[in-house]
């Protein structure tokens, strides 16, 4: 096993990795930018190396700086987390050249699976069902239109180099095709430097269900059951759970098999996720492989009792997988909610800023993977995830109750979070019935407003807080760092009478 690894990431995922390293007695090296000098991952690691300015390209995305940091600290391996360099095959090649182990799949696998056309071809050739559509790029809008007619509208134009929702267009009719092709290609060209596009059938009522896979360096590949991730906003998941309420044992078996086949066909090594679309008739189609640890991996850990980061480190250090498919049994039900710094009342707009008070939920079956603390200034420069809250219970119903309870006791003051919104979603009838599709938020919660049920209590609390005046004795009400004037320190006062 490694003696020391570097974590090329920040926030909750860096903390998540540090946590397991501590369990295993592996020393950790954090890296950080200007904005993260006082970030929790920097405060928690055994060593920390400064990378540079907050701008990701000059810090967390700077491959040479990161590999150099590993070399000067003597870290043998790099865990990339998710995002940043985690799915960058050039980075893996550099690690290989410099003799630093990358904790993830080989460069070629990342490259092949990162290209939508290559990965679709691999799947088609190995018999994994893919979404109906093209398996080669097409520059001619006429050919695209003819193909779209065959598939039936709506269709999806996608960039082969795609990611992050860029270079994607949903097309409803043939007269929109030419414009949409041009726009998607242009957007892909500017985002990825590659304007190649292709066509897929678009499913209006679909579920997003993915399978966790695990493969060692000796060709042993297993899956760790599914995750249901249909509840999304702006194509980003916000609630994930396992098991899915629609998978029958037979369908789970078939999809699990397909996931293992997909991993084997691509030469996969380490932990990865095979994503599928499941339509209304419960037919499933391969979407893509995420060649990294997913944000939602903890729900799998809860029901299987496994530590995925530990397994990642073991596989990367050359250990043979001790688990067989028969060893994998799911127990109970797990749900994860992503706690972002964002405002659900205003289109989920980002809400960076200082956290003036934080109280995390706790209790049996409650886990909060958190990357922030009271007093931390959440920077504008990075992903808005603050923590992921996970619960585990015997049944789905109990897990929902537990999650609502956990959310109720999760206090974040100073920035906006979707805590109340998530409570409403979890308690809504369609969610309770398990009727979750990728259009769930748009269909049921498009103009969400908070219920003001405890407004009177809030008014009383306001007055009591004024009467107690605890904070004002020490600090001004002003949020600025300047020296307080008497007008600020006086607090509540009135003119004249």
């Amino acid at each position: 096993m490694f003696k020391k690894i570097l974590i090329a990431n920040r926030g909750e995922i860096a903390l998540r990795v540090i946590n397991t390293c501590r369990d295993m007695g592996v020393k950790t090296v954090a890296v950080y930018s200007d904005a993260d000098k006082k970030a929790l991952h920097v405060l928690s690691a055994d060593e920390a190396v400064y990378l540079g300015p907050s701008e990701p390209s000059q810090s967390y995305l700077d491959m040479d700086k990161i590999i150099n940091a590993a070399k000067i600290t003597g870290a043998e391996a790099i865990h990339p987390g998710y995002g940043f360099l985690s799915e960058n095959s050039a980075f893996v090649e550099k690690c290989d050249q410099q003799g630093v182990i990358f904790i993830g799949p080989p460069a070629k696998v990342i490259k092949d699976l990162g290209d939508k056309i290559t990965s679709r071809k691999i799947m088609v050739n190995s018999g994994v069902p893919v979404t109906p559509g093209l398996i080669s790029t097409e520059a001619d809008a006429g050919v695209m239109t003819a193909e779209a007619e065959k598939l039936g509208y709506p269709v999806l134009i996608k960039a082969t180099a795609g990611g992050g929702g860029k270079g994607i267009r949903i097309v409803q009719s043939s007269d929109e095709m030419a414009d949409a092709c041009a726009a998607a290609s242009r957007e892909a060209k500017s985002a990825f430097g590659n304007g190649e596009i292709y066509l897929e059938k678009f499913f209006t009522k679909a579920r997003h269900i993915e399978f966790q896979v695990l493969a060692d360096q000796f060709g042993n590949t297993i899956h760790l059951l599914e995750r249901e991730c249909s509840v999304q906003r702006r194509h980003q998941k916000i609630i994930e759970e396992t098991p899915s309420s629609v998978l029958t044992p037979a369908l789970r078996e078939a999809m699990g098999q397909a996931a293992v086949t997909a991993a084997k066909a691509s030469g996969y090594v380490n932990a990865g996720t095979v994503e599928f679309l499941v339509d209304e008739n419960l037919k499933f189609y391969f979407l893509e492989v995420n060649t990294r640890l997913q944000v939602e991996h903890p729900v799998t850990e809860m029901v299987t009792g496994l530590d995925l980061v530990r397994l990642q480190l073991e596989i990367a250090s050359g250990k043979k997988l001790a688990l067989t498919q028969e060893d994998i049994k799911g127990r109970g039900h797990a749900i994860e909610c992503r706690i972002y710094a964002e405002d659900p009342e205003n289109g989920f707009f980002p809400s960076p800023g200082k956290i003036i008070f934080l109280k995390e939920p706790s209790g049996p079956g409650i886990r909060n993977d958190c990357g922030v603390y009271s007093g931390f200034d959440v920077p504008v420069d990075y992903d808005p995830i603050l923590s992921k809250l996970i619960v585990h219970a015997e049944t789905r119903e109990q897990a929902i109750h537990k999650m609502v309870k956990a959310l109720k006791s999760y206090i974040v003051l100073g920035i906006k979070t979707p805590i109340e919104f998530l409570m409403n979603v979890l308690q809504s009838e369609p969610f309770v019935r398990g009727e979750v599709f990728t259009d769930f938020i748009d269909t049921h919660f498009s103009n969400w407003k908070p219920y003001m049920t405890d407004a009177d209590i809030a008014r009383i609390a306001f007055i009591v807080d004024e009467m107690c005046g605890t904070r004002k004795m020490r600090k001004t009400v002003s949020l600025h760092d300047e020296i307080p004037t008497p007008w600020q320190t006086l607090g509540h006062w009135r003119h004249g009478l």
Partner: protein
Amino acid sequence: MEYRLKINEETFPVELENDGEEKIKAVIGEKKFDVSFSAVNDHQLHLVINGQRINAYVGDQNDGKIIMIRGKSYFVQDAERVEQTKTRKKGPGSSPSEVTPPMPAVVIAVSVVEGDSVKKGQTVVIVSAMKMETTLNAPFDGTVKKVNVAEGDKVMPGDILVDIEKTEIKEAVSSVL
């Protein structure tokens, strides 16, 4: 003692009466509340309201308090103080005719230079916060008087990123008066 407290644009008077040590009686509209309280720490109050035990978490924010109760957030303001403040200064977003970001952000592109004439709705600045890009448009037809930011600058709501002088449609206005 009477407070006028505002939540979500709705102002209600709250009548208050001391009822002993750490005890008050409050009346909001028709409803009466017997309250006993203690401050647990700087941000936590423990309230017993008509026999119901409640933890409320309080933080100061802008011109009010953010209060979390049972997972729900309420932004509560003293209505009188809000009225005083309004006349003193203009808060962020008080004028829709300014080029200002809706949230703390980083400037990723400035599409105009001083002297440019711009059309209403034309992109002038693109900002990014937490990986989400937002386009800021010219609020009216006009001429760019001054560009106050450059790529990479950190900006806050209320910061004027670009000064635009409005094109007067009717030239006659000044001469009439």
